[in-house]
């Protein structure tokens, strides 16, 4: 394994304990990603995909093992440092889009800039630009429930990109979409990966999609990597 990998995990383990019962969600996962890779993660539900994603996003902490991003030990950051990491290094998209329902598309896209301390005028300007890029500028004043699933996911992508992250984490981004929209969304991710050098880590149980776009795919089962394949 390359020691100066862009993203690197070593023996990553996450154990949830509730009372006396312990659930091993992730066990000794060691990965290494290069910058600009499109990395796929697949597996059945409960295999630990989302746990891995949350750990990489800095939303959760490992029980043991380590995560390094650009050599920086993410697993050792304190809460505030993790917030900064999420703010500037990673963008996330989700199966259920996770847009704020009371905000317009534009406000949703601009939301991360609020915490980055960007002035309101600048927030609006940047959000409008990025909505333009994903082709949703005409719908900027619509609220999530007025948008289709595909449109909502594109708003979510725009939001994930607004702070110019280096890594895009996509947790089942096509889970709530029909197959045509699904491939459009993954196509968008792939273009971002190719044209802008964005490192994409995508979870999906649709292996065909991953086989179509990803450079590498790993298979998880019961929290362990059971197969790692290089596709291209």
């Amino acid at each position, binding site marked *: 394994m390359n020691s100066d990998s862009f993203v690197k995990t070593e023996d990553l383990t996450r154990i949830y304990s509730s009372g006396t019962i312990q659930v091993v969600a992730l066990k000794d996962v060691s990965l290494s990603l290069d910058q600009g890779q499109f990395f796929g993660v697949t597996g059945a539900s409960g295999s630990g995909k989302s746990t891995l994603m949350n750990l990489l996003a800095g*939303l959760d902490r490992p029980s043991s093992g380590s995560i390094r991003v650009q050599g920086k030990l993410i697993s050792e950051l304190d809460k505030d440092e993790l917030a900064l990491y*999420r703010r*500037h290094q990673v963008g*996330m998209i989700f199966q259920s889009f996770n*847009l704020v329902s009371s905000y317009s598309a534009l406000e949703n896209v601009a939301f*991360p800039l609020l915490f980055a*301390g960007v002035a*309101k005028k600048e927030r609006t300007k940047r959000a409008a630009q990025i909505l333009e890029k994903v082709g949703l500028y005409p719908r900027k004043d619509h609220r999530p429930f007025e948008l289709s699933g595909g449109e909502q996911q594109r708003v979510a992508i725009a939001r994930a990109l607004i702070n110019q992250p280096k890594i895009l984490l996509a947790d089942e981004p096509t889970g709530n979409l029909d197959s045509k929209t699904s491939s459009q969304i993954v196509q968008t991710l792939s273009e971002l990966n190719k044209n802008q050098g964005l490192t994409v880590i995508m979870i999906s149980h649709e292996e065909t999609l991953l086989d179509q776009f990803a450079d590498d795919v790993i298979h998880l089962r019961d929290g362990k990597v059971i197969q790692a394949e290089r596709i291209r």
Partner: protein
Amino acid sequence: MRISDYIEQSFSNLWKKKLRTVLTIFGVMIGIGALVSMFSFGQGIQDNITNTFNELQLFNYVSVYPRSENNQTIPSSEQLNAPGQAGPHTQILDDAFIRDVTEIEGVESAFPEVRFPAMIRFNEEEKFSLVQVLPADICQSGLMKLRAGRPYSPADSNALIISDSLLRRMKVKEPETVIGQQIEISTLTVDLSLSNIPNIVSFLMGKGLPFSRQSYLFTIVGVTEKMGFAGPMPVRSDVFITPAESENMKKLSLTSIWDLFQSSQQAKGYSMVNIKLSSTKYIEPVKAKMEDRGFRTFALIDHLEEIKTGFIFMNMFLFAIGMIAITVAALGIINTMVMSILERYKEIGIMKAVGASDGDVKKIFFFESGAIGFLGGVLGLTLGWLVSMFINQIINYFMAKQGVPYMDYFSFRWWLVSGAIVFSVLISLAAGVYPTMRAARIDPVVALRHD
């Protein structure tokens, strides 16, 4: 995050739940309104009393009374059975005493309290009242607040000052109209000597009174305001005349039934002498001199501390009532904030996912409870002010009927105004502590899965 963004966020979030926000703010508004009107009432009463005392220089007075033999202020039954049994050491408050006192350093003047009952007749109306004899110089010293006319001077003959409350009882509404008009005072005299026995016998048999009437005509030169409070004041009657006029009148100098029986036995003397000092610094030396001579004294200034303590207790009581309302309002805020956080559970997860720190989340909700407090404080202040104005009008309406001049019973000081808003914000922030901590502790992983 920028401060302006916190403020904008908090107001826009509150605005999204208009009804709930308005109801919560109403709770705070009522609490702060209650507190503000209570406080301003306490302050208003305090201001009125201390201002009046200062204005009338009441703190410059010492009252001197004869000491009763067993040195008790409350008469025992023994005393009541044997009234007027003057002890060997009892000094007499007479004119010689007054001349004497006037020589003491710091004494501006001294005058006895002389009051006698009389029938006052004006415009076909007849009322019973106590007439007080008050020297012209005291009358001119500003001790009395005049509504109309002027104080009498030593040069005036047959001059009289009447209170507007008595005038009102005599159905005179405008005090200005009575200045220069004639008024009749009828005194009662009684003769308890042996020569008057038939009269007394008929009185005891219920067939008549052992009194005879003497009428005197006076000219009204001034109308005085009745003070809004009572107490041991140098001025406490409705009708005032000069000592010169008083001497020419035949009258009973009694204010209680005991005087009727003791007058023939007791050594002549005034029941009380009021001493006016040029400054409060002479109070203690003059009191000491008087007590050395065997008199009892009373100075209002000695009771200032008691009065202040009284005010503190009154304010504390009013504060306690206001605090109950505030506590209920604070519970309302906690409820609203907890509800808001539960509703926005997922939104908090999103905030954290896009880079909000725990501190950012905390501040967002803190600003929201602060905004509730601020709006509630401003509205509560307005409510308190309006209610106070309203109550003030009502009190004055009823007090005016009794001849009490218009007063502001509520006082709004700058510290009350700013303090109310600051207090409201602080209480709201305190109420926001628990919900805010709860919001900051939300696990984004769980919240993002939440539907």
